[in-house]
C-alpha cells in the first residue's frame, strides 16, 4: 500500500473508531455525529468524482442530495399513511424498506443528473457553475411551493426506515449501515478513478482538446461521471433523511451545495478520502465551535481560506506531505 492508500484507510478507520468508542462509553449523541459525518462524506464522495477528478465545479449537488432525501421521505410517509404514491400508470405503494428506498433514490437522482448534466455540460467554467446552481434552485423553489409534501415546512416521518435483521433506531446499527455504504462508495470511486474511464475523465480535465484529438469524447465521459456522482449524493440524501426522519427544502438549497463543496475542498479535491476528512473536520468544528459562538462559520471561512491558499491538497494533502495523489 502506498502512503495515499494508508491515509485513506486510516481516515476511514478513525471514523469507525470514534463510533465504537462512543458506543463503549455510552455516548449515543457522538455516534449520531459520526453518522452525520459519514453521510456528508458520502455526499462529498459523489461530488468529488466530478469536482475532483473531472474538474467540473458543480454548485448544484444539493439537488441530488435533496432528491434522495425527498424520495426517502415521500416513500416513507406513504408507507405510514397507506395511500399509494401514484395510481397512474400503475399503482405504486410507499415503502419503509431501506433496500427498496435506496435504489429508488439513486435512480431518481441519477435521472435528474442525466437531465441536468446533458444541459449543463454543454457549458464550462463559470457558466457551468451557474447552470448547475440554477437547476438546484429551481428544485428548491419547487419543493417550497409544493404543498403535498409539506412545502416550506418540510416533511416528517417519525419512524426510521427498516433494514432486514437490524434495528435502525439503535445509533450504532444505523451508523454501521452508513459506514458500509460509505466504504463501498469509496471503493467504487477508487475503481473508477483507476479505470480507463477514470483516466479519460482526468485526461479530459487536464486537456479537453488533446483528449478529443486522441479519440476521447469528453461530453459522454463527463455526463456518465455526473450521473454516477448524482446517484452517490442522492443515496447520501436518502440516508440523511433517515438520520433526521425529516426532509425539508433546506436539503435542496444552495447552502447545502456549498457545504458539500466545502467538505471536498477542506478535505482535499481529487483525493479519495478527501470528502471524509472534510466532512469529519466540518462536524467537529460545528460541534466544538458551535457551542462557543453561533458565528462559528466565520472561523470555518477563515480555515477554508487558509486551506485554499496554503494547502490546496486539503487535509489529506497535508497528511500526505504535499505529495502526489
Amino acid at each position, binding site marked *: 500500500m502506498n502512503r495515499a492508500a494508508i491515509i485513506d484507510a486510516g481516515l476511514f478507520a478513525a471514523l469507525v473508531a470514534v463510533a465504537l468508542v462512543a458506543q463503549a462509553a455510552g455516548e449515543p449523541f457522538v455516534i449520531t455525529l459520526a453518522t452525520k459525518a459519514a453521510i456528508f462524506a458520502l455526499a462529498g464522495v459523489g461530488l468529488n468524482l466530478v469536482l475532483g477528478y473531472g474538474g467540473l465545479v458543480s454548485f448544484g449537488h444539493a439537488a441530488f442530495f435533496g432528491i434522495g432525501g425527498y424520495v426517502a421521505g415521500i416513500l416513507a410517509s406513504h408507507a405510514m399513511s397507506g395511500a399509494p404514491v401514484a395510481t397512474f400508470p400503475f399503482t405504486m405503494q410507499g415503502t419503509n424498506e431501506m433496500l427498496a428506498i435506496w435504489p429508488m433514490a439513486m435512480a431518481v437522482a441519477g435521472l435528474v443528473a442525466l437531465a441536468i448534466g446533458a444541459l449543463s455540460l454543454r457549458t464550462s467554467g463559470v457558466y457551468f457553475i451557474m447552470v448547475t446552481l440554477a437547476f438546484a434552485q429551481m428544485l428548491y423553489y419547487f419543493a417550497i411551493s409544493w404543498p403535498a409534501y409539506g412545502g416550506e415546512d418540510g416533511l416528517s416521518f417519525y419512524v426510521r426506515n427498516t433494514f432486514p435483521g437490524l434495528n435502525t433506531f439503535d445509533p450504532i446499527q444505523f451508523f454501521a449501515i452508513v459506514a458500509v455504504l460509505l466504504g463501498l462508495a469509496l471503493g467504487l470511486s477508487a475503481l473508477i478513478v483507476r479505470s480507463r474511464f477514470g*483516466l*479519460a475523465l*482526468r*485526461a479530459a480535465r*487536464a486537456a479537453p482538446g488533446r483528449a478529443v484529438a486522441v*479519440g*476521447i469524447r469528453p461530453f459522454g465521459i463527463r455526463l456518465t461521471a455526473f450521473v454516477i456522482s448524482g446517484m452517490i449524493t442522492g443515496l447520501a440524501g436518502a440516508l440523511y433523511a433517515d438520520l433526521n426522519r425529516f426532509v425539508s427544502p433546506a436539503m435542496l438549497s444552495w447552502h447545502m451545495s456549498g457545504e458539500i463543496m466545502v467538505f471536498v475542498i477542506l478535505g482535499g479535491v481529487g483525493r479519495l478520502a478527501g470528502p471524509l476528512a472534510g466532512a469529519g473536520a466540518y462536524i467537529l468544528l460545528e460541534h466544538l465551535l458551535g457551542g462557543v459562538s453561533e458565528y462559528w462559520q466565520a472561523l470555518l471561512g477563515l480555515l477554508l481560506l487558509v486551506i485554499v491558499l496554503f494547502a490546496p491538497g486539503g487535509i489529506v494533502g497535508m497528511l500526505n506531505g504535499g505529495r502526489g495523489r
Partner: protein
Amino acid sequence: MSALLELDGVEAAYGPVQALFGVSLSLAEGEVLALMGRNGMGKTTTIRTICRMLPHLRGQVRFAGRDLAGVPLHRAAQMGLGLVPEGRRCFGPLTVAENLIVAARPGDWTLPRVTEFFPRLGERLGQAAQTLSGGEQQMLAIGRALLTNPRLLILDEATEGLAPVVRQEIWAAVGRLKAQGMSILIVDKALADLRGIADRAVILERGRDVWTGSMETLGGDEATRFLGV
C-alpha cells in the same frame, strides 16, 4: 491503388480569415509524406483540417476511402488518424503509463511494444508526464498516438524546440516506424533530416500546394524559393 489520405482542392478558414485556398495532396499506404513550407503558409491548418479540428469549406478530404466531411473530431481519431500535436501535448498530471493507455485501442501496438520502442518511457511509467524532459514528452506523445493503433501517424513539428541530440533520437524513431511500414504525414522545417526519411514532399505557399514531388527531385532552387533555406 487508391490513396490512404487524399485532399482535393481543400479550402478552410478561421472565421472570416481564409487560410487554405486549395490544397491537394495524396499519401499512399506505407508512404512517408513531408508537408513543408514557411511559417504561416498553412501546414498546421492543413493538419487541423485532416483531423477535423477545423471543418473545410470546399474541396474534399478522404481517408481510407471515406469522405471526412461532417465526421466529428473524436471519430476521426477512432477511424485511425493518429495525431501527434505541435508542442508535445501530454496529459501533464497523469503518469506516463496512464497517458499511454488512456486512449489505447486494440491492435498491433501494445503497451509492451511501445515501451520496447521507447525504452526511456518504460523506465518512467509511474512518473507524472509533466516531469518528463521535452524529448521524453515528445516520445510519450508519439507513443500515445501509436497505442491508438492509427492507420496514419501525423507528426506536427515533432522536433521543434528540442536539443540536436534529442532531435536525432526522434528522427531515428520515425525512421524505425517507417521501416515497420507505418504511413506517416510529417510537418517539419528540417529539410536535411526529412531528406533521409520522407519519400515525397508537398510544399505549401499561402494556403496552396505549389510543389509536389519526390525528395530526390526537391532541389536547391525550390528549397530557396519556397522554404527560404
